[in-house]
């Protein structure tokens, strides 16, 4: 129990220290609460990268010993830095909001009785919805301990193949297993194997833990980030909106890679959109956004589109000189990007989109306007129905925003950048449907719920930028 916990806590702590540290005199660290929300997910992702490289030399268990050595040493170093401090004065974290962190749900004497009652009610409602989501997640972990079909046929199968088959990688990516999409990246399977190696045994609980951590990290990141920018009442409302759709919790309990990917999309899109306004923390925000986007590509092939998108967005809208922005981008993306490149070049077989059809066929499909329009219509219809809640999740979200609307120029700017990134991602998904070699109706029917779940946290963050708390903790920084 302690060793698997170490596998998660050590990288999370290292990431937390890295995000809350003043790297230079001109730079500010990230807000501590936001860093704490980001750290577990980013830590798991980065640890899967280092573990991948250790697995190139040795089997999973000895690789875990090397991995533990690395992350514990890094955590001890981080602890030493955070205790002593690199600078003589205490680092000021970048306030995501402009006012005191005590504002908002942390009730102050200035607040009226109504404010207190209402804020407590919203917090209680958020806790209730979160509790219902957790309860269902745990019940489903008992009902389907190996996850849904795609989980055991793809992600958990890959984890078992790595755990039992290494150092012979050929058994993991053999063409005989083409039905299992062996070209899918390894962040989720290696995170599971890493927990097994730390625990010393193969158990179904590891996949459940990874799935739960990403669900919790996504919720925490959304609530904290929206709360800091738009006020805590709106932050809590965004948490309820995220966990509301039945489909989203269902997908989280499936143990597939879509909810982890959704976490990385949320982090990349939100930080990239905010980085322009982040003042002293801009470089750190840009670097973290590119780390998250590269980890998204290391999680699932859909993330391959996000990485260049975020990189261009960060470079174009950078508030710091291009050269510094480029350095932060390269530093942020280096580890996951090199890991992904090593995996794709050395192991990954071709993708079915391009293996099962000629380039000519793909071009013909793209130029078939009727096909594009029909698929666009199907996607739009399914997007409006998505969520398995009355009226559809998007409609509920739109009404919520309409009821609580209130924004300034900066909030609108963030929403515009984030909305652009999410829209291009969605268009990318539509393009994949257009060129799919499979029966397109079957392809959409069997994948759309998962794909939209990937975007749901980022959509929620984006739309809640246009929402305002009755007593917002919004100031110059927001």
């Amino acid at each position: 129990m302690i060793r698997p916990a170490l596998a998660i806590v050590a990288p999370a702590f290292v990431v937390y220290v890295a995000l809350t540290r003043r790297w230079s005199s001109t730079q500010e660290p990230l807000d501590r609460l936001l860093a704490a929300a980001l750290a577990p997910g980013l830590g798991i992702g980065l640890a899967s990268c280092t573990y991948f490289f250790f697995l190139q030399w040795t089997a999973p268990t000895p690789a875990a010993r090397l991995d533990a050595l690395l992350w514990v040493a890094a955590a001890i170093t981080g602890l030493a830095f955070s205790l002593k401090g690199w600078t003589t004065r205490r680092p000021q974290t970048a306030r995501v909001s402009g006012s005191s962190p005590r504002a908002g749900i942390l009730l102050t004497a200035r607040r009226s009785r109504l404010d207190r009652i209402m804020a407590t009610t919203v917090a209680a409602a958020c806790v209730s919805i979160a509790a219902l989501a957790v309860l269902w997640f745990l019940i489903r972990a008992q009902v389907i301990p190996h996850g849904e079909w795609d989980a055991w046929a793809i992600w958990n199968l890959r984890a078992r193949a790595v755990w039992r088959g290494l150092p012979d990688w050929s058994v993991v990516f053999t063409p005989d297993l083409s039905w299992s999409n062996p070209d899918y990246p390894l962040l989720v399977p290696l995170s599971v194997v890493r927990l097994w190696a730390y625990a010393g045994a193969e158990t179904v609980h590891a996949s459940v833990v990874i799935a739960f951590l990403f669900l919790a990290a996504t919720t925490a990141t959304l609530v904290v980030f929206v709360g800091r920018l738009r006020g805590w009442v709106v932050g809590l409302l965004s948490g309820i909106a995220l966990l509301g759709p039945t489909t989203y919790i269902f997908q989280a309990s499936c143990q597939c890679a879509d909810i982890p990917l959704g976490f990385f999309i949320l982090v990349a899109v939100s930080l990239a959109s905010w980085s322009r306004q982040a003042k002293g923390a801009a470089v750190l925000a840009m670097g973290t956004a590119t780390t998250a986007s590269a980890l998204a590509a290391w999680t699932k092939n859909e993330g391959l589109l996000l990485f260049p998108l975020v990189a261009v967005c960060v470079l174009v809208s950078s508030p710091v000189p291009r050269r510094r922005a480029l350095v932060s981008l390269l530093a942020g993306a280096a580890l996951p990007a090199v890991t992904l490149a090593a995996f794709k070049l050395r192991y990954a077989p071709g993708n079915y989109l391009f293996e099962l059809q000629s380039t000519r066929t793909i071009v013909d499909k793209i130029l078939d306007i009727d096909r594009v329009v029909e698929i666009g219509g199907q996607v739009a219809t399914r997007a409006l129905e998505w969520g398995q809640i009355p009226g559809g999740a998007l409609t509920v979200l739109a009404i919520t925003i309409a009821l609580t609307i209130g924004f300034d120029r900066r909030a609108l700017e963030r929403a515009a950048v984030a909305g652009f990134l999410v829209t291009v991602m969605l268009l990318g998904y539509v393009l994949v449907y257009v060129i799919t070699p499979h029966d397109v109706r079957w392809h959409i029917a069997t994948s759309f719920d998962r794909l939209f779940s990937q975007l749901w946290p980022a959509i929620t963050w984006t739309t809640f930028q246009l929402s305002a708390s009755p007593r917002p903790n919004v100031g110059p920084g927001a």
Partner: protein
Amino acid sequence: MPRGQTFHWIRVVAALILLVSAGSAKYARVRSDWRELSSRQSAPDYITQEDAAFRSLAPWLPPRGRIGYLPPSDWPGANAVRRFYVAEYSLTPRVVVLGVGPEFLIAVPEAITDVASPSGGSDDPRLAGYALVRSFASGIRIFRRVG
């Protein structure tokens, strides 16, 4: 309290009611899954059962390499495909491939519908050149190529 502030709270409450009622829609799913779990008592789910059945084959199979899988008559029906995939999930790092050819061959009960021969094997023509290695309580059989 300013009137505008009160009005904003009213709007937040409306949004809250909307979000909570929408989010509560999953309560029905929570109940149905809870009922399923309760009705099952301590019996494991389908994948766990199948996983255990295929894993019991492991000591009689080589630790690595390709293992044949005799397709059942309803192939490629969803249940048949699922069982084939579970076989790979359970027996990895062995690579389970559809059809005869490899030295070792797995046959699920639905794959062999004829009456078993006195040797416990099958008269299925696809099994020509194979001899029964072992038959398991789950009905799954392992064959090995002879000659």
